């Protein structure tokens, strides 16, 4: 007698996906010339045809953004700008379920996450930044800090709408206008957001969305009419952007890769630690730049904790992302699945021990079982390279110093976790860790008031909070 959960799919009738989409430029949808398919990664069903933006589309979008900046947006008071953002936040709340379903369809992440995490955070981000719009004098950036002008924003596929919010909300609040390119595989919620801008009666050209691939992004980065770049994505592309803008006066914030260490001391609250480990690496299929992808366990509790982790992993429900009970959804693309498989194979080849719970994966779509590797050392590729999938590398340590050394022994510096019931040890460890976000006795928590961003090769600048505003403003006099 077992308690099998019957399928509990969220209805997709709430979304209306058009067969073909254009770009959103100057307040209007304009047809693109070339198109590519966007698919549901859980089923490989073609959802729609997305326009492949070229140089001329980017030119038009930048022109629209420039015109909107000089003619309307920069002339508007902060108070009025803020009211537009409040409107957007409210419409996002009203249409939250529609966005959640669409995001799940296009991205493959579970509806539980889009419904309970992504979309609520999106609305919160706009609401938070709306309030800043007329209070920038108090942001600690001097009197009357000034916007840069047109912000070129390129976002990833792991949190499509949330990353849009992280970019668009502060840009608009600070008085910049925007040309945004969503990721190639996840354009649909950005295009629905364009409708929200229309419903909010946002002035034409303040937000422009050009869909496309890497070449479209490059056209934005290299466009002379762009004053500020905001990019979230891989460290490799981040470095390319840094080179591309080296000879210009463009400002840039880069939110890049990570190989987050999650350190567990032997006095940790074990059951909640197991939850934190699971949330750290299996949240969003591990498609998280700040994932806790290296688990660093104190030797005395390693065996017990790994056993508990395995028991817990056996409860992870892998499957239909639209099912309300799904914990782990689909890998976002075939390309990403191949990358995960390649690195996991490297783990096998280098002698680490792989374990996954028994789970049946659909033949259609892109899937990867939750996986841990034990017996991993710092020399393994799976301990050094970002896998960006549901794969956890487990290492051990003997002394606190050794834990910190291992945690910091990476060119990345985005996130870290530390688990202990001892207050002074928590504070010591958080001080030693070279990472922009340290979660102590928790993991993968986000909030618009909380600055986020990396040390070292994990990027430049912060997003969120007072610190995030600085990226979109020039110092006042």
């Amino acid at each position: 007698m077992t308690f099998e959960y019957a399928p509990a799919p969220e209805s997709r009738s709430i979304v209306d996906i058009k067969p073909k989409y254009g770009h959103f430029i100057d307040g209007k949808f304009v047809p693109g010339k070339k198109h590519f398919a966007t698919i549901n990664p859980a089923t490989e069903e073609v959802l729609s045809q997305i326009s492949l933006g070229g140089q001329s589309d980017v030119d038009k979008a930048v022109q629209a953004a420039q015109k909107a900046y000089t003619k309307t947006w920069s002339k508007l008071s902060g108070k009025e700008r803020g009211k537009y953002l409040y409107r957007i936040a409210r419409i996002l709340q009203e249409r939250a379920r529609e966005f959640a379903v669409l995001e799940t369809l296009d991205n493959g992440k579970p509806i539980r996450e889009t419904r309970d995490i992504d979309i609520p955070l999106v609305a919160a981000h706009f609401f938070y930044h709306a309030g800043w719009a007329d209070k920038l004098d108090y942001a600690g950036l001097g009197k009357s800090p000034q916007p840069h002008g047109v912000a070129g924003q390129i976002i990833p596929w792991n949190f499509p709408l949330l990353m849009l919010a992280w970019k668009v909300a502060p840009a608009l609040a600070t008085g910049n206008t925007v040309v945004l390119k969503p990721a190639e595989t996840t354009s649909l919620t950005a295009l629905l957001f364009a409708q929200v801008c229309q419903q909010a009666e946002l002035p034409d050209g303040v937000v422009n969305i050009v869909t496309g691939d890497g070449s479209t992004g490059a056209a934005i980065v290299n466009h002379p009419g762009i004053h500020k770049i905001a990019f979230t994505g891989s460290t490799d592309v981040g470095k390319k952007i840094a080179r591309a803008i080296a000879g210009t006066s463009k400002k840039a914030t880069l939110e890049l890769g990570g190989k987050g260490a999650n350190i567990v001391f032997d006095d940790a609250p074990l059951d909640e630690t197991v939850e934190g480990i699971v949330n750290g690496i299996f949240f969003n299929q591990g498609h998280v730049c700040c994932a806790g992808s290296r688990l660093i366990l104190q030797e005395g509790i390693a065996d017990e904790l790994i056993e508990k982790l395995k028991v817990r992993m056996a409860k992870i429900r892998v499957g239909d992302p639209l099912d309300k009970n799904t914990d782990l959804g689909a890998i976002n693309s075939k390309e990403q699945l191949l990358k995960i498989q390649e690195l996991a194979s490297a783990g096998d080849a280098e002698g680490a021990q792989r374990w996954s719970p028994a789970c049946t994966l659909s033949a259609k779509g892109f899937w990867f079982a939750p996986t841990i590797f034990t017996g991993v050392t710092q020399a393994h590729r799976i301990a050094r390279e970002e896998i960006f999938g549901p794969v956890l590398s487990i290492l051990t340590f003997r002394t606190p110093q050794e834990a910190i050394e291992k945690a910091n022994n990476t060119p990345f510096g985005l996130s870290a976790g530390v688990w202990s019931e001892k207050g002074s040890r928590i504070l010591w460890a958080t001080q030693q860790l070279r990472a922009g976000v340290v979660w102590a006795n928790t993991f993968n928590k986000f909030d618009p008031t909380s600055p986020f961003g990396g040390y070292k090769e994990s990027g430049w600048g912060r997003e969120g909070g007072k610190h995030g505003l600085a990226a979109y403003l020039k110092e006042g006099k």
Partner: protein
Amino acid sequence: MSFYGIVDGSESSLKRFLAQLPGVDQVGAEARAAMLATRSIKTTSKRWAIDTAISMVDLTTLEGADTAGKVRALCSKAVRPDPSDTTVPSVGAICVYNDMVAIARTHLDAIGGKHVPVAAVSTAFPSGRASMEVKIQDTQDAIDAGAGEIDMVIDRGAFLSGQYGLVFDEIVKIREVCGERAHLKVIFETGELVTYDNVRKASYLAMLAGADFIKTSTGKVAPAATPPVVLVMLEAVRDFYQMTERRIGVKPAGGIRNTKDAIKQLVLVNETAGPEWLTPEFFRIGASALLNDLLMQRMKMDDGYYASPNYVTID
């Protein structure tokens, strides 16, 4: 003496053992319980869950105004919760005060309810503020009157002042009184223990002292059987089984009033302790109003439209 080879029952051995238990992070535990509360149980699984929940109900009346008539009516309902539908299972037990045990047992036996045990709340329930002699006599009376299950309360005052040995000894003594004749459920009154760390410690104290079941609350103090409290207790029985291969049951009581709450409890069991606990032998829900809501939901699933309280019996 040795209890599972883990403690010798002395104050110092208990303190040592309890001190090395990992702490419970309040926020993390509550977040896990909240996440499990989002599980959506539909159609066939909901039907299964409703019947399973009915079979786990400890149908309870613990009022100063209880009478023989009231207890007999409850017994009838316990055996056949829905007189018009014989597919509805009997509940897990009838739970009453000491002096109602004989009435309940006699009536149950008379109406074909021999399979439904009578649980007696004991040891100066609900406060537990009485001498050990009285607590022992209370328990002995109930067993002699036919109670198959004893729901004792721990001495929360002793627990909160760190006298773990005292708490432990009382449970051991009541366990001895129960012997082979009655199952022992140990009530913590988690609303008075306040912290999850205390709930975990109390769970281990009770399990080591010989409890068959650990139970959240008397129903007289709020908060009672909140999902995170039950989560922590389910973790304890799961880990205790790993240590001893003895499976201890869990009984949330108090505050579980509708089907949704009950199903949340079953999800907690399923994903924390595991499906082995999803039987009345190892999981009970102490409740009174819950049963009728379960029955109404069951009717809705059978008939396809929402039920009216007029069609379930009020006892």
